[in-house]
């Protein structure tokens, strides 16, 4: 379990996160939703320690992230996989090398063992035989999937996904949601997903937190979200034709 306790984050005078407290449970897909610019990415980067928080603290199973030395932080990161909003694949490496990189860096596996793991991960994201392609040769959806494969290559305990299916067609988006959900159940990872896709929310929202302008506005699950009378959340949920029809 990961717990954020009263965290605030400023960029200059701009308070991007305002006193947020949230718990993210093991074996569940914990969704963070909110409009563009509401602070989802910043929140996720605070959770993984890429940004320091200005107030409050973050605990990984009772280990306080901000109190750790940089060595301890680096150790905990070996249990952590993250999918960045833009993929963040290493341009200079092909798909296989990208996924293999954390394995080479942190394990003593032989090349054959690593290759087996790479192929296993590629298989999970339905991208067999793309080993030798370079990031510039991948489509947006393939980039996301390779990035997921890289995020899970070390079998992480904590999995962070920043908008795993934005910019993808509905079918691929669904496949990726299912994949992340499956991995979460199968390996009992603590999974945190940023999204503004209501399809994902209704499908895999074990726990949902709604961030509005840097504040935690609402929390619940995929069933409760359709029945809420919170105005801002309702505007968000029923912003599309599809969800509006669903309500009526």
């Amino acid at each position: 379990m990961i717990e954020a306790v009263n965290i605030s984050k400023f960029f200059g005078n701009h308070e991007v996160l305002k006193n947020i407290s949230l718990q993210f449970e093991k074996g569940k897909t914990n969704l963070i939703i909110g409009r563009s610019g509401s602070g989802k990415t910043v929140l996720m980067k605070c959770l993984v320690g890429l940004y320091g928080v200005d107030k409050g603290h973050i605990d990984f199973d009772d280990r306080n992230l901000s109190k750790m030395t940089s060595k301890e932080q680096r150790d905990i990161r070996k249990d952590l996989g993250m999918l960045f909003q833009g993929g963040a694949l290493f341009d200079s490496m092909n798909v296989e090398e990208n996924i293999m990189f954390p394995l080479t860096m942190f394990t003593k596996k032989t090349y054959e063992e690593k290759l087996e793991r790479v192929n296993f991960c590629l298989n999970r994201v339905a991208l067999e035989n793309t080993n030798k392609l370079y990031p510039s040769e991948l489509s947006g959806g393939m980039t996301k999937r390779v990035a997921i494969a890289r995020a899970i290559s070390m079998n992480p305990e904590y999995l962070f996904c920043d908008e795993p299916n934005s910019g993808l067609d509905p079918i691929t988006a669904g496949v990726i949601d299912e994949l992340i959900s499956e991995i979460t159940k199968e390996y009992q990872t603590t999974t945190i997903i940023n999204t503004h896709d209501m399809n994902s929310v209704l499908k895999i929202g074990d726990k949902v937190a709604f961030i509005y302008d840097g504040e935690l506005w609402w929390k619940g699950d995929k069933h409760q979200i359709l029945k809420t009378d919170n105005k801002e959340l309702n505007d968000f949920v029923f912003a599309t034709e599809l969800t509006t029809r669903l309500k009526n």
Partner: protein
Amino acid sequence: MFNALGEYLLLMFQVFRKPDKRKIFRKQLFLEFQNLGIDSLGIVAIISAFFGGIVAIQTAYNIDSPLISLTMVGFTTRQSIILEFSPTIISLILAGKVGSRIASEIGTMRITEQIDALKVMGVNTANYLIFPKVVASLLINPILIIFSVVVALFGGWLACVVTGLVTSQDYILGIRYCFEGFIVFYALIKTVVFAFIIASVSGYQGYFTKGGALDVGRSSTKAVVYSSILIIIFDLILTQLLLT
């Protein structure tokens, strides 16, 4: 400015650590030998050959007194090349070529979140990205400079022989006249210091790039400008320290 200096020193503190994984470091190092060293051979050769020729011809034209032997042409060419041209001018050229390359490579990785991705994995990013470049520069720049000296002296010889200003014999005699090993040592010390400046300053500029693609361009310009200025400043300091 003091902020930047502090930031730079803190970064260097992160850079000079034992690499997480020897094998990966070695692979990066060889890649940098290629990128920073071998890829620069062409430009170093061309500039050195022409410069050697130019210095030789100029010296020959300036000696119009029959009292001064034409062997002085070889001697003067050798001295200017080893003392100043190869270590300093070639390092300035490398600051342009290698410095901008380092800054834009690392800067691009910064703005596309590749550095964040490395950090999240638990990699010491400063060490992983900058250390191999610094080590490669420290090892390969002296070789490039020696190569430059050899090519420049050859360029001088060729210019003398082709123009007929100085005979091959006189030129070679001049090159060997009163040779002290110390000047080579001096040249190499300068080269190593300049190599460190180029790699570390450019690494710093790239590493702290903020913003978008435009800022990557800005970082790489800054890398070239700052390392060039520092090279000239340290040239003065080292010359003062070593030659007087």
